[in-house]
């Protein structure tokens, strides 16, 4: 018997994407995010000056045609530093959230699907971590690991993971009580296949929403750690460390703090808009609209 031509249906992901693109603010957020990603990737080509090049003749000059964002206390071009700083911020945001997903989701799935003492152990540790304020824990971990951008990212990844443990666990518990998981069991699926091929694909939407919001938080956390000297190390630029050195010149050279501050604000806002849009697009209740 020959197989007939098969019509492909509209997948749930495609449907969500369609809904996402109807959401104007979210699309705007996505455009801003993509723009910053391009800026970070193309920094060597679009930065007008070397971000590390100091000059004693151009110290703390206000914005001008030559230096759009002005120059800093060492005569470095602020625009170039903001452009290069996008690398540190976005990398810290994306990589640390990927790390948090990598740590949190498997643990959450195990806790939700296995239950019993495994759940008890994982959930109590996650609860304990969540009981400490996010930034305090990140600072403690980063200080323990030593000041470096990589360590800051690792600290943020660990600190952000309990949220994903809780989310994945809750969604796995929900999924466990559905008929389709029981059907998967009745078909003869081993437990690991149920977790990996049935439950995981179904909990990706809420994880995606949480991840995009977590990136915004991680960017702020990286900026805070760098501000405190625990992240990106001088002279390499990062928005947080730029704010740190700018605080001494708040009144004399306000552009030193306004420019990186604005960059943080815009990127964090953009990620939040994307997260909200994703939430609306992926919410199963939105199907009725």
């Amino acid at each position, binding site marked *: 018997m020959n197989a007939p031509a098969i019509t492909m249906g509209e997948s*749930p992901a495609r449907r969500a994407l369609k809904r996402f693109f109807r959401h104007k603010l979210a699309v705007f957020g996505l455009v801003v995010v993509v723009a910053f990603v391009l800026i970070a990737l193309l920094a060597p080509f679009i930065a007008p000056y070397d971000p590390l090049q100091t000059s004693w003749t151009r110290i703390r000059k206000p914005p001008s045609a030559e230096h759009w964002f002005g120059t800093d206390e060492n005569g470095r071009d602020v625009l170039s530093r903001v452009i290069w700083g996008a690398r540190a911020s976005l990398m810290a945001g994306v990589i640390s959230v990927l790390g948090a997903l990598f740590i949190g989701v498997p643990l959450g799935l195990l806790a939700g699907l296995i239950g019993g003492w495994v759940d008890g152990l994982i959930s109590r540790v996650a609860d304990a971590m969540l009981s400490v304020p996010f930034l305090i824990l990140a600072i403690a971990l980063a200080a323990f690991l030593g000041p470096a951008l990589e360590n800051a990212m690792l600290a943020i990844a660990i600190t952000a993971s309990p949220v994903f443990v809780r989310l994945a666990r809750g969604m796995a518990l929900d999924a466990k009580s559905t008929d389709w998981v029981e059907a998967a069991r009745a078909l003869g699926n*081993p437990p690991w296949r149920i977790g990996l091929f049935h439950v995981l694909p179904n909990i990706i939407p809420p994880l995606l929403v949480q991840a995009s919001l977590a990136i915004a938080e991680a960017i702020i956390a990286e900026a805070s750690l760098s501000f405190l000297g625990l992240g990106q190390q001088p002279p390499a630029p990062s928005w947080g460390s730029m704010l740190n050195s700018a605080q001494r010149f708040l009144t004399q050279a306000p552009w030193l703090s306004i420019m990186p501050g604005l960059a943080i604000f815009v990127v964090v806002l953009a990620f939040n808009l994307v997260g909200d849009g994703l939430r609306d697009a992926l919410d199963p209740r939105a199907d009725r609209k």
Partner: protein
Amino acid sequence: MTALLELRDVVKHFPVRDALGRRAGAVHAVDGVSLAVAEGEVLAIVGESGCGKSTLGRVMLRLIEPDSGSVRFAGEDLASLSPAALRARRRDMQIIFQDPFGSLDPRMTVAQAIAEPLRLHRVVPRAEEAARVAELLRRVGLRPENAGRWPHEFSGGQRQRIAIARALASNPRLIIGDEPVSALDVSVQAQVINLLRDLIRDLRLTFVLVSHDLGVVRHVADRVAVMYLGRLVEEGPAEHVLGAPRHPYTRALVAAMPGAQTKTPPLEGDVPSPIAPPSGCRFHTRCAYATEQCRAETPRLEGAAHAVACHFAASLPAPVERSAALGGGERLARLQGFFRGNAPSPIGMGDYA
């Protein structure tokens, strides 16, 4: 006939916990049920909602572990199987769920869902998979071109057909249908029931139909087991149990069917709580014939072909024929006659014509 599935004294209680997590009691979902299903037979398990019939259906496949008692499939005690051996055994025993909107993984296409059992049990080589999926879809009355679509693109009836195709994929010997049509629109129910009946006949399936709908049961079942609060009260060939019910509970169920020929006082009150089931015969709180003996002594399920669990099964008054009022069937016949234009009006209007 040999028994493909044999249950002996199966008990399943679900613990009920109070606010502090202490065990406060148990829902007596299944309380000592023994049953045998012969190869090629269609057994219906009927009863009101909450009587434990769905739990019993899941215990049959060891989707729920019984507290005690044994379940033997093809002579093999399912409880003795290792998890891996049990999974391999699932090739031969499948289930169709009640809710077609819940039983299909929303992130799998029709082809993926139906191919899953084929892959898990290596039923056909990968190269023949698409052809087998297409054949199964045709078999359940769906166009094979639809294999690439997602569950949300189908109606309830179509989804249930997909679930049936998935259950058939591994060529199982036994299929449990847990209220397979009760979540569907009435207009679709008949189509799906006819499909099931054809499949059972053509593929010589052994089928356990869990249902509260005696109309559906009468349509497909060879044998009927009636359940009340976790226990069997009557069991036997379908024409006997539905045609000449012996237990007062079965009589009430049969009399409540549309088109019933007999009259019985309708059941009063609700089903008692399965957390604290009545003593003795569990039906005594709602039975018109209950005596002191019924309150104290638990009746045993007795009888060879047509078994009944009632102390007074032999001495109950014969059911009253519905002669005074028109039976549902007779009324329907007269209505049909009227609309064909060759019979007097069923409400006497013909006199004025």
